[in-house]
């Protein structure tokens, strides 16, 4: 039997010929869309911040003028306060990056390579810590460490330690406990990529475990260790959560809070905010460039693609010691701070501590009953976060799919751009949003989004979240064989259907991961919330911080607790059933995307 193939006349779909396009446009469509989104969400605000630093008169209330001047930079840099905060930021960044990398690396090695009990539960700890916002951890530690705080009440805290906590030492301590998951992820994934072969080869050559770690695994992990150091350093530099809590209470001035204070506290000094933002960005940029240079020298292929999991060390009785150490980290980083927040939420005054008569449900009641300011703030934040997560993950998916058709060079460029944007401190971006949407003609009078409106806050949230979403989704798409979508193209499947029917089901877990990460991060996002408070009412993070500074920490803790429960509950409710469904319906052989918690 001979089939009639469509090679005959008219076989090629005649309708297709109407769609002739210039190849250049077709090729550039994806990149252009991506650049446009990046320019509007990130590029323009950033540019204005930097311009403001060198053109102090740019947005002057009386007679704006675009004159170049080094005056703000000189004035800012020569001010002892700013010079002090630069020094503080650097000291804090370097110290915290060092301790964080040590703790995170040790945690990753112990948990991945040793046969400790309860591995599943312990490997969940970094994720939970990672998802808890830094200012909540900071506030929890304030409750614990302040004179009259919980630890002092329990007699566990010598006064001298309490006093030294409010300063560099305490900041390094809280940063380390709060950021160690980042180091653990980076070093852990490099460790997972090492595989057993190299170690086996070294063992066959007669090397003992110590020698293997010093001479084989150590050098191979070096790039990851350096990367972890750099990433934490950048993270500490751009942190606003601790800067606006512990650092502010200890009068330990850092750059991020300096920018906020110059842009938000009376007397407002935009040029000074711009100048400090310029310094901060320059430092972060330096770090990113150093990272690029180092990574170029490291051979990425050397430690990848090894599928065989490495052997775990049998520690015997020692494993209980390791287990105890892991538990201690979990206790300090997660259980104790959350416990402090919960305790404060459930008691009426801090002073009476954990006395039975001090327990009350008043705070929780105020946070949870409808039509209270606290509850309004919570609901607002959950709504904004949901909206942001939908927009950011959808936008990231669309942009990723467009990039999918572009060259590998373009994909790398956008991945680099996203990683760069991740490093931009939220506080700088937030300041840029004020400049663009409140000062720039055209944007100022634009009806939607409008300054002072919830829509602009959501837009800011999206800008802060989009790079993360792009990194997660792009890396998931990068793990899909391109032939899968090529095959669909050749079967005559259009782009949208290809995205929905082929790409999306295969990377669904990553898209949901991006969605949930964005949702949780946004519920607690601080710098944008602080800079772009909508007139309809403040979002939860602003409210929590304000309640804290007004000494109503009980209600603040109740709100934080409720927000964590809501965000965590919603995430678990989506994540676990979905994972089960996908694991059931998904045959083996689809590469799991990176960045999924498992």
């Amino acid at each position, binding site marked *: 039997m001979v089939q009639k193939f469509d090679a005959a006349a008219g076989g090629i779909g005649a309708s297709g010929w109407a769609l002739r396009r210039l190849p250049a446009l077709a090729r550039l469509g994806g990149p252009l869309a991506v650049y446009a989104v990046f320019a509007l969400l990130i590029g323009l605000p950033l540019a204005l911040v930097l311009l403001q630093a060198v053109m102090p008169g740019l947005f002057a209330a009386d007679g704006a003028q675009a004159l170049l001047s080094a005056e703000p930079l000189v004035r800012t840099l020569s001010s002892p306060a700013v010079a002090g905060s630069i020094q503080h930021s650097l000291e804090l960044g370097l110290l915290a990056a060092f301790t964080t990398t040590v703790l995170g690396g040790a945690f990753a090695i112990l948990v991945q390579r040793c046969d400790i009990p309860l591995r599943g539960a312990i490997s969940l700890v970094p994720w939970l810590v990672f998802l808890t916002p830094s200012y909540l951890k900071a506030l929890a530690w304030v409750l614990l460490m302040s004179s009259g705080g919980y630890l002092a009440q329990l007699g566990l805290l010598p006064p001298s330690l309490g006093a030294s906590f409010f300063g560099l030492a305490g900041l390094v301590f809280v940063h380390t406990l709060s950021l160690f998951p980042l180091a653990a992820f980076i070093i852990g994934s490099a460790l997972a990529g090492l595989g057993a072969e190299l170690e086996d080869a070294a063992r066959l050559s007669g090397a003992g475990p110590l020698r293997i770690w010093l001479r084989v695994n150590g050098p191979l992990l070096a790039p990851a260790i350096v990367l972890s150091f750099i990433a934490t350093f950048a993270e500490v530099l751009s942190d606003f959560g601790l800067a606006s809590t512990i650092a502010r209470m200890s009068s330990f001035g850092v750059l991020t809070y300096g920018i906020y204070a110059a842009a*938000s*506290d009376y007397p407002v000094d935009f040029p000074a905010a711009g100048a400090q933002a310029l310094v901060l960005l320059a430092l972060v940029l330096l770090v990113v460039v150093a990272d690029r240079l180092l990574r170029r020298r490291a051979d990425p292929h050397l430690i990848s693609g090894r599928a065989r999991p490495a052997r775990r060390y049998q520690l015997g009785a020692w494993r209980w010691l390791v287990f105890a150490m892991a538990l201690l980290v979990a206790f300090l980083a997660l259980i104790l701070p959350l416990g402090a927040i919960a305790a404060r939420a459930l008691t009426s005054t801090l002073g009476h501590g954990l006395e039975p008569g001090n327990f009350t449900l008043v705070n929780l009641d105020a946070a949870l009953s409808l039509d209270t300011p606290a509850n309004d703030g919570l609901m607002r934040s959950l709504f904004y976060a949901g909206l942001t997560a939908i927009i950011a993950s959808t936008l990231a998916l669309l942009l990723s799919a467009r990039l999918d058709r572009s060259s590998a060079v373009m994909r790398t460029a956008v991945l680099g751009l996203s990683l760069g944007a991740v490093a931009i401190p939220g506080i700088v971006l937030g300041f840029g949003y004020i400049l663009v949407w409140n000062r720039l003609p055209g944007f100022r009078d634009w009806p939607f989004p409008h300054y002072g409106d919830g829509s602009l806050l959501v837009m800011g949230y999206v800008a802060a979240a989009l790079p993360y979403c792009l990194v997660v989704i792009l890396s998931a798409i990068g793990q899909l064989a391109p032939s899968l979508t090529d095959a669909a193209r050749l079967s005559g499947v259009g782009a949208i259907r290809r995205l929905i029917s082929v790409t999306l089901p295969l990377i669904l877990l990553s898209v949901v991961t991006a969605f949930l990460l964005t949702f949780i991060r946004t519920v607690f996002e601080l710098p944008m919330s602080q800079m772009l408070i909508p007139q309809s009412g403040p979002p939860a993070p602003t409210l929590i911080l304000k309640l804290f500074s007004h000494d109503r920490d009980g209600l603040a803790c109740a709100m934080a607790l409720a927000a964590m429960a809501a965000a965590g509950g919603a995430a678990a409710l989506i994540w676990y059933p979905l994972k089960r469904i996908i694991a059931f319906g998904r045959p083996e052989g689809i590469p799991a995307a990176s960045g999924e918690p498992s």
Partner: protein
Amino acid sequence: MTIKATLGLALSLTALSIAAPACAADLVLYDALDFAGPVAKAFEAKTGLTVDVVEPGSTGETLGKIAAEGGNPQFDIVWLDGSAVMERMAADHVLQPVPAEAYDKIAWTDLGKSLIPQSHAFLPTGTSTTAIEVNTKKVKADKMPKSWADLQGFAGSVAAKDPNLSGPAYQWLAGLFQTNGVEAGKELLARTLTNKSISGLSSGGKVNKAVLTGDASVGINQDSAIFSKIAAGEPVVAVYPSEGSVSLPQGLGISARTQHMDAAKKFIEFVTSADGQAAMQNGDDTDFFYIPVIKGVKPKPGRETSIAYTHLDDKVASAHETEWKQWYKDKFVQ
């Protein structure tokens, strides 16, 4: 997929977020006062008009937000502690004078009358003053400070607010410079506020906390903050300085660019009515313990009202606002 499709989808998603906040309120209120929320709620219930209450944080942050908005202010009404800052904003044409008939409708007490500014920059809705907060467990009765000058004896153990963040604190600083002289006042503070970790606090709550936990034995605080703690049963007292107290009016001002003058007038009318004054006392936090300035309105129980006032020269205070705040910041903060 064309670029259009991508952007179209993105735009329509973004447009989703229009739905919620697009319905603008009848009145936008910027404030840093505890009772503003309840008062706005009561106003909404009574008039059916909607109010957006925006509270960026401290008085300083509220002023900062207004300054940041520059020529594009978003508020209709601002309600803050401190007459000097209101005078300064009126002088900068951020605020417009409150219409004269608004004052005339009200039965002012003598104290109230004395607070009405010539410029009509704001309408006083109540007042308070600054006092010395003393922890009675830490300081014996015979060692109580009696004046600002006595505070030198507690050097390093005096908690104070940063005037950059707090409206009341600036009013106090300007008042101190008026009663004690600028140079003498600066010297006095330099000798007294020697502990930077408690001399640049962000709010009255923080001063309370410092005094209650014993980090400081005395504090310079708004008296209503002290009374709210006394009402809660805390072991503190308020001591009024012998130099005389500077009154610290809560002022309502109207934005020079408001599009909602009628609603603003209605709001002023409501605040000065019996219902409005009741709403201003419907809570336990600092600002609810204000001193009424309208005849027939009683303060919250426990609130001291017989105070020897001196009148603050707002012109001088607002003229030096930026300079003195900066001086304080450089000396006692960070």
